[in-house]
């Protein structure tokens, strides 16, 4: 439609707004201005859903432009091109790398309405009062800074957050139960010669190294003081074991993007591999059996959140806070929970989910009816139970968090050698 044409409806709307604006001056001017705000969000694909941007426009009035990139590219952009984004939708380990560059600004928790309802994992690291904090870059260790402008992380809740947590999950191996035909209960199975030429691992160094560490530890080959912060010797041993396996033809392929992992699994090229939760759903949606297998050593977990670019100020900054508060108010939470992720504020998400959905995704109960994906396709029939069970069962068994190590550069070099070898 041509922009030059005035429809009757637009003129009426404009007139109504003008009347309202003169009746209630301040807030309406705000509402008019905010419509022109465009927030540019750069992030990993996990939470970049067009539905979210559309809902932002509907609920808040401003425009959210989303760019989805892989983890390395997001890190790169957040660290080197602070002017290219307003909101960084990143993982906590990325935050650890990016925060020291000063490209993000600390957020005042007094402006976050639902702060008190954010899961404990992100505040003091404890899911329940007696849970043990896992190895790696646990979100709460990089979740706070001393104050605005500070580039060092605070050890406890300081009132200034680096990222507002939005999404997290516990990852494990995905398997094809129909092609394996026996129970799998350990990370060590990834290198079991039985699956020669049928295994895969992801080619994203910072995450792949953690999966490797879970495997090596489960095999009893390497013991780590902290899997999330390995010594060079531990890195050498870990990568050495995998290089040997690669030489012996253990791996069919490595994957870098979500769709590659789905295709490898759905086509039967691979029967056991590192995988992400929605990829499992995507394989199942094709009618192919696929299980997100809980393993006795526990999960490799990750958490993401949204951070604000240091350059953000004035009205766009206010809009960004609006966005954050809206994010935590439940609609997005419900949306993400239906994808198999967890929301940082579960109790608000509950309001936007049916009882059956909440029972299936969060409480680990058997579904009483069909479980639908956000796009409306049936992904589970009545009676199905989520792999790994309830929220507390899954998030309570986290063995380590995605992380960035002191020896990161050494690790990356070794990783490249592993891929190139």
């Amino acid at each position: 439609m041509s922009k030059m044409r005035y429809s009757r409806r637009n003129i009426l709307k404009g007139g109504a707004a003008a009347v309202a604006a003169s009746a209630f001056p301040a807030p309406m001017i705000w509402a008019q201005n905010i419509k022109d705000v465009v927030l540019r969000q750069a992030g990993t694909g996990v939470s970049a859903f067009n539905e979210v941007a559309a809902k932002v426009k509907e609920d808040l009035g401003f425009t959210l432009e989303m760019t989805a990139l892989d983890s390395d590219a997001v890190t790169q952009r957040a660290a080197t091109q602070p002017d290219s984004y307003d909101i960084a939708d990143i993982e906590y380990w990325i935050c650890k790398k990016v925060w020291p560059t000063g490209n993000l600004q600390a957020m005042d928790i007094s402006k976050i309405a639902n702060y008190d309802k954010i899961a404990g994992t992100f505040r003091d690291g404890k899911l329940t009062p007696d849970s043990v904090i896992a190895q790696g870059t646990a979100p709460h260790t990089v979740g706070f800074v001393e104050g605005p402008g500070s580039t060092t992380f605070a050890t406890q809740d300081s009132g200034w957050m680096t990222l507002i947590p939005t999404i997290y999950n516990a990852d494990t191996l995905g398997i094809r139960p129909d092609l394996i035909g026996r129970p799998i209960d350990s990370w060590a199975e990834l290198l079991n010669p039985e699956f020669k030429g049928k295994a895969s691992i992801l080619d994203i160094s910072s995450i792949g190294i953690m999966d490797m560490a879970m495997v090596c530890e489960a095999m009893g080959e390497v013991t780590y003081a902290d899997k999330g912060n390995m010594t060079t010797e531990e890195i050498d041993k870990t990568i050495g074991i995998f290089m040997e396996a690669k030489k012996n033809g253990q791996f069919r392929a490595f994957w870098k993007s979500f769709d590659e992992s789905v295709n490898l699994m759905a086509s039967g090229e691979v029967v056991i591999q590192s995988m992400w939760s929605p990829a499992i759903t995507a394989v199942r949606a094709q009618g192919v059996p696929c299980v997100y297998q809980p393993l006795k050593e526990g999960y490799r977990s990750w958490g993401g959140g949204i951070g604000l670019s240091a350059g953000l100020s004035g009205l766009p900054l206010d809009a960004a806070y609006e966005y954050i508060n809206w994010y935590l108010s439940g609609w997005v939470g419900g949306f993400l929970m239906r994808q198999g992720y967890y929301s940082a504020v579960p109790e608000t998400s509950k309001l936007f989910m049916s009882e059956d959905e909440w029972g299936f995704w969060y409480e680990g109960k058997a579904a009483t009816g069909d479980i639908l994906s956000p796009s409306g396709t049936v992904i589970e029939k009545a009676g199905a139970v989520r792999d790994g069970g309830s929220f507390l069962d899954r998030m309570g068994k986290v063995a380590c968090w995605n992380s960035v190590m002191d020896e990161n550069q050494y690790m990356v070099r070794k990783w490249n050698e592993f891929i190139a070898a």
Partner: protein
Amino acid sequence: MRRANLNSWLLAAPLTGVLVVFLILPILLITAVSFWTADEFSFRPDFQFGNYEYLFGSAVAWKVFGLTFMMTVIVWALTLVIGFTIAFFLAFHVRTQKWQMALFLLTTIPFWTSNIIRMISWIPLLGKNGLVNQTLIGAGVINEPLQWLLYSSFSVCLAFVHLYTLFMVVPIFNTMMRIDKSLIEAARDGGASGFQILTNIIIPLSKPGIMIGSIFVIALVMSDFVTTRFMSGSQLANVGRLISNDIGLLQYPSAAATAVVLLITVLLIIGAMLRLVDIRKEL
């Protein structure tokens, strides 16, 4: 005389300007950056040889360069044989020009879709449960699916040959079309066999086309990274992937150093080839 001189300078100036700004400057910049130092996020001007030392000291880098060469030679040989045969058929066996053009255009049809699509479309064909394996198993030729069809050097080679043979066909066909047919008739009258005509007339006169095609294929294969990544399931690496890995990890100086070494290698190869055939003289 002076005026003519000035005029030719002026005529050459726009192209020179474009080349300087878009080719020479970027290459100089890349070369300069290759001497810089980098840490995890930042890189700063410097003049040190650390990036090159690491590159030449790394066994993996040598191996990757070796693999890239090997792949280039294999792909070059295959595309040359296939491309030459197709061009030969089109130029000398198809009688009418109408059919020559029609068949020539036919060879370009696959190139109407993108590079990536042509590459990816091999995957469902070659996979464990792909069409080829299913057919072979169905025909009783094999019992177990062939693993090496996909995510192997074989599949990488296959994709390269598929992607780049046209770059051989076009220039060779072009030079062949310009061979004077009376030369061939004269040779035949003089009692030359078909093979002698091929080796004594057609191949020597097609050399410029062969060279141009070879330069295309060699430059394309040596600088590729995406075909190798997809068709080997990320299991093989070539020089392009070393560079893209470095870029992904913000190690621009190290990527620049690898790029400079790659550029020099390709230039040396092409230089050596141009010593063999003077393209300008033969065109």
